[in-house]
């Protein structure tokens, strides 16, 4: 509750300061507002980190079984509709919340000198608040509200601080994801109304509608119903599964629903990209775990093949398209598509390990991709160009930037002992285990294998054309107009170092985060198996 409320309120209050002020006053306010935002985000980070040490660091002592939550709290909101402001954290949502609070200060540092800071930093805070809201909400309605609420600050981040085509990109981003999520909303509403009418029973149930939006209650119902057949009936469950997944797949995004992402990323400012790739995409995967996977396990099993195909296509297509990009940021954006494919495949394996891989991939990608985009942002900022090859021999001219880039690239291509590797490895193991177990074709391994090579290819190729070569012979890009060749600013360096440090930390010591995710997935499966919902040979 406080986690969401504070950044939103702080954002609004800080924005209120700058409302209707003229330009000079605006500039005077930049620094205090930046400091306030930063201090605030740092406080949030401290708070969630303390949460980690208090509860989530030792997941077994937290004793979370399926569908139980820590910091569980509920407030009446729209009793007429059975809407309660229910919050809670479990091993699924906590890493995402922590990630968000971690990225907020880092983003602020990395974009310390963003123009119009007086409005920029509060917007970032608002963004963070909305994101946290998505993750902590245990109420379908609130979940959806925050889900859409994230669009607004991001829309402004792109529109006000974005690149040349930001007008087009911001609208496309908004409309595309909104379209998918209204379909999801219809699914949610249908799900909501498929509950038996319990009007008059009060409590969690709406006084007008007689239903509840409470996710834990719904999941309990679903579990009970799924034990003896299909919750809501077979075809209904399938339909709802598809409707919900549509919203999540677009957000994730999976091919062929991904084309909003490159546009949004290329045009978004660095801070926007960092949060977009770092947390916002994960909302899709998080939503999958929270809703359809928990409530519609039968449908999940039914659509396993479809999910696997989506995952494979995203994985492979993303990687192939990456190789064909000439725009650095676009390439990184497509690499996100490819990595999100890993998450889908992990889910489609229907293995605790695959799911843990997906969860850890969400987390790891949430640390690595902001760094990727921070690098892209710095590149753009300093060289005024995003074209691969416009700047060569960066290692000589801008060693910090070159090093950061190489580190981020290597982390993203899954170098061992950096955060991404464990997830990829687990995904591969789970996938093969699943293929061998179910007797699927070995050809399913071709996709991941191809992508492991392709990923290396596009990253290395782009490095060859940016970091290496040139040096003495090649002149800096024309866009610099012969000015001095810059390197990272002090703030950017700090941000890069922090991101790199955490990439290494979670690469070398994955158990910090992975233990709780593993616990979540195993509990989930144990729960489903012991209730006879997941049956052998399904």
């Amino acid at each position: 509750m406080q986690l969401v409320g504070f950044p939103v309120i702080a954002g609004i209050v800080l924005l209120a300061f700058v409302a209707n002020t003229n330009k000079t006053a605006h500039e005077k306010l930049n620094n205090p507002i930046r400091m306030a935002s930063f201090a605030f985000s740092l406080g949030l980070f401290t708070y969630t980190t303390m949460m980690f040490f208090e509860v989530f660091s030792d997941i077994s002592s937290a004793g979370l079984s399926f569908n139980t939550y820590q910091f569980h709290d509920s407030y009446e909101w729209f009793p007429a509709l059975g809407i309660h402001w229910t919050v809670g954290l479990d091993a699924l949502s906590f890493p995402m919340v922590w990630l968000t609070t971690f990225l907020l200060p880092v983003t602020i540092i990395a974009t310390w000198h963003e123009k119009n800071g007086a409005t920029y930093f509060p917007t970032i805070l608002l963004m963070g608040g909305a994101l946290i809201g998505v993750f902590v909400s245990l109420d379908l309605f609130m979940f959806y509200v925050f889900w859409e609420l994230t669009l607004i600050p991001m829309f402004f981040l792109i529109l006000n601080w974005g690149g040349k085509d930001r007008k087009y990109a911001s609208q496309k981003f908004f409309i595309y994801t909104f379209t998918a999520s209204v379909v999801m909303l219809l699914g949610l509403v249908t799900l909501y109304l498929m509950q038996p009418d319990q009007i008059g029973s009060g409590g969690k149930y709406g006084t007008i509608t007689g239903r509840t939006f409470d996710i834990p209650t719904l999941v309990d119902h679903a579990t009970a119903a799924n034990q003896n057949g299909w919750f809501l009936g077979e075809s209904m469950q399938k339909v709802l599964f598809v409707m919900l997944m549509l919203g999540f797949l677009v957000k994730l995004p999976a091919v062929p629903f991904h084309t909003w992402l490159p546009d949004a990323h290329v045009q978004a400012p660095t801070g926007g990209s960092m949060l977009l790739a770092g947390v916002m995409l994960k909302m899709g995967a998080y939503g999958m775990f929270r809703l359809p996977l928990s409530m519609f396990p039968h449908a999940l099993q039914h659509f396993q093949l479809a999910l696997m195909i989506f995952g494979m296509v995203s994985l492979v297509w993303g990687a192939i398209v990456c190789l064909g990009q000439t725009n650095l940021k676009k390439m990184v954006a497509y690499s996100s598509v490819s990595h999100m494919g890993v998450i889908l495949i992990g889910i489609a394996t229907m293995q605790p390990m695959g799911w843990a891989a997906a969860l850890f991939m969400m987390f790891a990608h949430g640390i690595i991709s902001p760094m990727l985009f921070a690098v892209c942002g710095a590149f753009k900022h300093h060289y005024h160009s995003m074209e691969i090859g416009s700047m060569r021999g960066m290692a000589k001219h801008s060693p910090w930037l070159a090093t950061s880039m190489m580190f981020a690239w290597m982390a993203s291509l899954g170098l061992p002992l950096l955060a991404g590797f464990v997830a990829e490895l687990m995904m591969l193991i789970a996938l093969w285990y699943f293929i061998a177990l179910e007797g699927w074709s070995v050809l399913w391994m071709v996709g991941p294998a191809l992508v492991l090579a392709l990923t290396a290819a596009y990253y290395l190729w782009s490095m060859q054309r940016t970091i290496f070569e040139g040096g003495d012979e090649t002149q800096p890009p024309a866009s610099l107009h012969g000015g001095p060749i810059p390197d990272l600013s002090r703030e950017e360096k700090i941000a890069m170092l922090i991101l790199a440090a955490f990439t290494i930390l979670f690469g070398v010591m994955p158990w910090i985060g992975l233990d709780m995710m593993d616990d979540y997935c195993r509990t989930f499966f144990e729960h489903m198996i012991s209730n006879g919902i997941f049956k052998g040979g399904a």
Partner: protein
Amino acid sequence: METTQAFTPEFYTAVMPEMLLFFGLLALMIIPNLGKGTFRIRGTQIRLPWFLGGQRYAWSSNPHLPAWIATLTLTGAFVAVADSLRGGVDAVHIVSSDAESAKELLMINGFSRVFELIFFGALALASFSSMNRLRVEGVGGKLKVDQLYNNRRQADFYILMLTCGLGMSVVALAQDLFVLFIGLELASFSTYVLVAFLKETKAGSEAGMKYFIVGSVASGVGLYGLSMLYLWAGSLQFDVLAATFAVSGTEPLPLIGIGFVLVGFGFKVSAAPFHFAAPDAYAGASSPVAGVLATASKAMGMVGLIRMLLIVAAPDASDGSAVWLVCLGALAALTMTWGNIAALGSTNPKRMLAYSSVAHAGYMLAGLTAVGAWTWDPTFAGNESDAALMVLTAVLFHLLVLVAFKLGAFLVLSILESDGDASRLSSLGGLAKREPLLAFAMFIFMISLAGVPPMAGFLSKLMVIMGIVNVGVGTGAGGLGDFHWVWWLALLMVLNSAVSVFYYLRVAVVMFFDEPEEGREGPLPKGWQVRTSILVCVLATVLIGVFGNSLLEMCRTAAESLTTKW
């Protein structure tokens, strides 16, 4: 429940808000005309001052005076209605006489009160904000305050506002179709003139003409439908009509009659294909008037539709659904899609809002369609009437909150209008630089119209969708194939919402991204009244979206009071 005759003391207590309006009207006619006028006694030179006409006093010629009177009157009425709504309304029936055969004329209950809330609220905001925004001269010129206000025409404007409100409240209260029609005509005539109020411009007079002609045709058709119903039933009392309909509802005469009446109301709610005059009227009228058309006037049409469809031609429990189900469903689908598609390419913000208002009419019609289908599933799990009440609640709620963000959007445009022009999208350009708070308000209105949480527009749209889905899923055991087709209206509705984001967002982009038009970089005209109104709208939009529970419950109570049959 109590019954009283007209023009008894109880009657006056019961229709307090209307009486307020009436006296306000009188005051508005008299007070601005007070002056040093004298009356010469015939045949003598003695002039007795009778204070009417002549050179007016400074205070009575204050250009703000009529507006203040109208605003205070409407606000007073609004407060009176709101006060009576607190803690539930006791229904008061007003009958023509104490005889056994007495006709029921008006009924005051929660349902009608909620609509009055909508009418008075919208009119009060509109008159308050048009206090210093009403343009009387040609497009573009910035005039001094003295020039701007031709006091007498100001008075005309607000008189029309009040008659409009009076007519609307009659519509809300009427229990006789003809009484309803009279109220409707009173309100309509006022709006025709209000639309044509900018008669000094080509657009204004043209808009008035179109709105008048098409509206007259529609009400002509409606009146003819009325006459057919009368021919068929021998009375236009709702209860009589309903009873007769239950017996012989499938005869051609009532069906044609209902169809014709539907046309009349369809024009008021601007349902396709009766909406054509609406964009023109909105574009030509001054923005607050357009806002009234899009909110209060639409709500008035909805009252008529609800009375006609849900009371008179109520869905038959044995048969399962209403005769007008398919028809209304088709209208709803056509209306929402047409509105959104047309708005998509519209570059005039007012026309865009007009089309969006068409789309919103479609959403509400879809909701009503669902009510028409509410008893289709014999194995329906919940209380059947709950489903219908939910939709009705949703429609009421939607109409209620629409006042906040639809009117609010028009009010923002009205500021731009007095800055020169608001007929191009580019006139919104750079609003964020010129006046950030105003741009922010407009953004809130836009996303609320689009149905983005946590705005009120989202909640109301969600309610409508929920209502439709609730009816549509039934028990839903067989999956999609087992749904009633109204469920697809919900899908169409969400897809339409998605389409609508496109043009709502474009407004935001223009405000926050584009540069102001040539020569319009300076600050916007002053005027605290309109800004206050906008602030009220913003607060309502956000707060209802976040804390609207009690309002929802109020709408629910109102919906329950519509009829005792459910």
